[in-house]
């Protein structure tokens, strides 16, 4: 199962963000606390995601998404970039939650979160109580990780057509998938199958 650019854009549409094409080039700059905060219209000011943050989110996505998902890193990057563009408060909350998760990994396991094995990453989240935590943007560390890391990644995934398809619905809530699908007896062929995952929205 392949996550496409279209999925990321669909997930972004569900949070009201729009992204220009250039962003998708996926440049991995060194960590910068203020990356994307000054995103303007010029190409020089295109937002970027620090490699550290992207590594961590992709590493978390590998755990919270089902196995066998291709194109995950690009999906995560596209989504999170669009998500945080022009939303400094959200970006700050995300960065803070990510930094806290990383700090816990270093304390408990002596390594950055992204460098741990997938099953250790999974266990670490569960040991932190994230699986049963309420998502609270300004709550405890565990609650913030649930809100900004786990739930944001799950929201992006399961409100996209590809994530929805995996569990039987090609037009999930939050995705403007038109008014044909509810009339059909079964899932239509995926748009990626039909159009090759181009960038129409």
């Amino acid at each position, binding site marked *: 199962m392949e996550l496409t650019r279209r999925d990321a854009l669909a997930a972004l549409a569900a949070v009201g963000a729009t992204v220009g094409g250039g962003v998708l080039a996926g440049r991995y700059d060194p960590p910068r606390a203020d990356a994307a905060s000054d995103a303007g219209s010029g190409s020089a000011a295109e937002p970027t995601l620090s490699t550290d943050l992207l590594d961590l989110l992709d590493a978390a996505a590998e755990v919270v998404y089902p196995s066998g998902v291709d194109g995950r890193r690009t999906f995560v990057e596209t989504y999170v970039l669009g998500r945080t563009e022009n939303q400094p408060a959200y970006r700050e909350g995300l960065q803070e939650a990510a930094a806290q998760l990383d700090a816990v990994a270093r304390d408990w396991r002596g390594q950055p979160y992204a460098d741990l094995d997938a099953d250790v990453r999974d266990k670490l989240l569960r040991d932190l109580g994230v699986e049963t935590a309420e998502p609270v943007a300004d709550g405890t560390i565990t609650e913030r990780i649930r809100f900004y890391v786990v739930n944001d990644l799950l929201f992006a995934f399961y409100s996209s057509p590809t994530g*929805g398809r995996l569990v039987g619905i090609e037009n999930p809530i939050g995705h403007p998938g038109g*008014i044909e699908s509810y009339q059909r007896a079964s899932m239509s062929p995926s748009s990626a199958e039909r159009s090759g995952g181009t960038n129409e929205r």
Partner: protein
Amino acid sequence: MSADGGSGGSDGGVGDGIDRTPSPSADVCVVGSGPAGALVAHRLADEGANVVVLEAGPRFEFSERTAQQEQHIRPGMEDPWEMGGPRDAYSTEGRHYPLNAARVKGVGGSTLHWQGMVMRLHERDFEMQTRYGVGTDWPIDYDDLRPYYADAERAFGVAGAMDNPYAPPREEPFPLPAFPPSYSDSLFAEACERLEIDMHSVPNARNSEPYDDRAPCLGYGTCKPVCPSGAKYTAESHVAKAEAAGARVIDRVPVQRLEHDDAGETIEAAVYATPDGTEHRQTAGQFVLACGGVENARLLLLSASEQHPDGLANSSGAVGRFFMDHLFAGAGGRLDEPTRQNHVGFNTSETHQFYDDTEPVEGLKLEFLNYAGPSPVIEALGADTWGDELAEQLNESYGTHVAVGGLVEQLPDAENRITLDPDRRDDHGNPVPHVEWSLGERTERAIRRANEIQHAILGELGASIEWTVGPESTGPAYHQMGTTRMGSDPGQSVVDADCRTHDLSNLWVVGSSVFPTGGAMNPTLTIAALSLRTAEALSASLSDP
């Protein structure tokens, strides 16, 4: 930009630089900008009247709708319509009435959150006393309202079809084609055919194609509470039209009370407060209350005076009494095949076959849901696991649910009522509304009857029945009605057939608070029809003072 944003500034302390001081020479002051108020404001402004609309809640920018949709889908975020808190405090007695889930304060009113199913009342709904000796008759009948219903359907842009054999008479088709039936409707259709139950389309205030400069439905699936495409009608449409016709709409200015002349015969001013706490007096020739089914009564009670010690327009004692809602009845379960739920957030089939039955006499209508069972994304966000385990769980829980919902009529009862709570105050120091609401034995019987039919349908379909919402677990459908009832006898009712109060000659009340009985149809098309009728009567009194 907001030089006068501070306390005492003309923007009332909001900081947006928008003038919130009174209009100097208003012909008409409308209180509330939901569909009831917006339609009256638009019609009168269009005819050249100087109209000012005072709205307690804020303006919600359309550009924020997707962000609000996310607030709805994701746990741990704010209510997208910001309901609750000291501004909206209330108390209840009897069955808990969740008032702040049942209304929105903002430009557009509760239609910001509503579902948008819109149907006409039946002929019998206007004469329940004459026909069955229950409730009370309306002072008007279906024929009086019929042209205004058609007008209201054009205003909302209703998508519907003429396929309902139980609907009251109509000549003209709906403005927009109906949404086609869902796949799950087709499953129900076979079972219903065997049971000789007729299914038909649902009139929806939702664009099945572009209409009135609004987009067609795009299938976001979150109609209630937020439609990001604008396909679902909200009264923001008629607020915008009213403004284009010259009306002034001021947000964040809750009216505190109405003030009358020395004789107590006409209203002189609506006193409103801005967020910085400053009070202003908006004078006008005519006043229209359009605050929704609870606040209409509350504002009349809050305006008690020496001449009107029990509240304005309350010589009958009926203000606040006869509070009614529709009761939800439902049942659901699972099939052993895909049912394709939760793609869209609205329904495409109903049956009104049992509506006019006499055993019981309470109206009831049944809805075949397109959103039975969980939505995977919402379930995922509240799940206790992730990864493959979560995907398995979602695969197991999504995909085979079915449900039949429905609304049941509650007859008027004077003991169900809105009063002022002497012990609690809102953010401006006014007593909060106190909602006393219970169900009688006959309402419970009618709910059981709805359940019986729902179980029969699910059984015929071959579904397991996993849940039932019956008399114990039922709740209101969020249609607050009856608290300023309409009638021809000033000793028994608050407003006349034109929705003008019996006691004060320039005070009008619009909304479902004027319904003497409520039937079992969602109320807002009837609210709109009555508003359009009231606008006509009010307009005549403007030109002929």
